[in-house]
């Protein structure tokens, strides 16, 4: 790299000095453009916030509606219901002494044999550790059979058909 001569150094210094001292003026309308850009940016942000708020409200309303619908149609715990009915049936049989009076008729009832079949299937499912929704229809059917047996016991009748 060659060393610049003193004339050149002076000239460059003068160039840099003139550049440093120059005070170029920005266009007169630059501030109004900045204000307008700021206004537009603020409006866009407000719109985005509103859109996001609106979407949030829609999602919230949807969630509330879904929850309301869900709670309006509660799922029945068929297992608990079947167990409660079983206790009810035993109590009725005990109180009315129907079980003791007509054991043979009860045992021969088709509902009773279906109940026994369901109990066998439930037992098998538990032995194979199946605790899924597949058991719900069995518990439901068990409840229906117990309902029918309770109704029959109350009337002192032997159920022949559900």
């Amino acid at each position, binding site marked *: *790299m060659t060393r*610049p001569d003193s*004339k*050149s*150094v002076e*000239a*460059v210094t*003068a*160039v*840099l000095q*003139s*550049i*440093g001292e*120059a*005070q*170029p*003026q*920005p*266009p007169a309308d*630059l*501030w109004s*453009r*900045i*204000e307008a*850009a*700021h206004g537009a*940016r603020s409006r866009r942000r407000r719109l985005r916030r509103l859109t996001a708020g609106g979407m949030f409200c829609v999602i919230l309303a949807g969630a509330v509606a879904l929850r309301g619908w869900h709670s309006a149609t509660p799922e029945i715990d068929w297992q608990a219901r079947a167990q409660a009915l079983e206790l009810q049936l035993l109590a009725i049989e005990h109180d009315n002494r129907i079980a003791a009076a007509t054991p043979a008729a009860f045992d021969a009832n088709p509902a009773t044999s279906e109940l026994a079949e369901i109990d066998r299937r439930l037992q098998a499912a538990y032995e194979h550790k199946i605790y899924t929704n597949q058991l719900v229809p069995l518990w439901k059917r068990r409840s229906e059979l117990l309902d029918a047996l309770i109704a029959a016991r109350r009337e002192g009748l032997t159920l022949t058909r559900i």
Partner: protein
Amino acid sequence: MNRSANTDMSGLAPLSGFAQIVEASVLARAQRGDMPAFATLYARFGQPCYGLALRLTGNAAQAEDLVQEVFLKLIETIRSYRGDAPFGAWLKRMTANAAIDQLRKNKRFVDADPEAMFAAADAVDASPAQKLDAAALLRRLPPRARAVLVLHELEGYTHTEIAKLFGQSESYSKSILARGLQRLHASVAEPQAET
């Protein structure tokens, strides 16, 4: 002694450019989002901000965009200004950073190789009149070299600060500056040789 806020320590010379002092009340209003306070800040710093942007970019349209970008950012970030440094110095740094960001974003100027950078600038020839014009001489430098030269020679940035701004080494900054000055020397020598 009743010294005006915008005079130097002697109380005689008016402070100018980024050295101007801003009243605390104006800053407080701006920090509350008061637009007339921002207009006051622009009235005071718009020109030095534009001057620096123009020196760094060498292009009036780009400088205007840069000033707009800086003031929009100022409106959004002034709440974070804690007064650790004078407001003018804070704004000056913001302007320089915005200009460097623009240079770094522009793929045309991404080439960090000084050889390639100066070779590309050589391809652009200038008229004899432009060769005598100070601003035009600066424009003949590659954008990065111009920015390094302006920051170091006119704005008092150190090589460490420049290297940090560009995400390069100090030796890169020194090399670019040396080449830029060499180019300027050659440019001012050309018209003398031609006459």
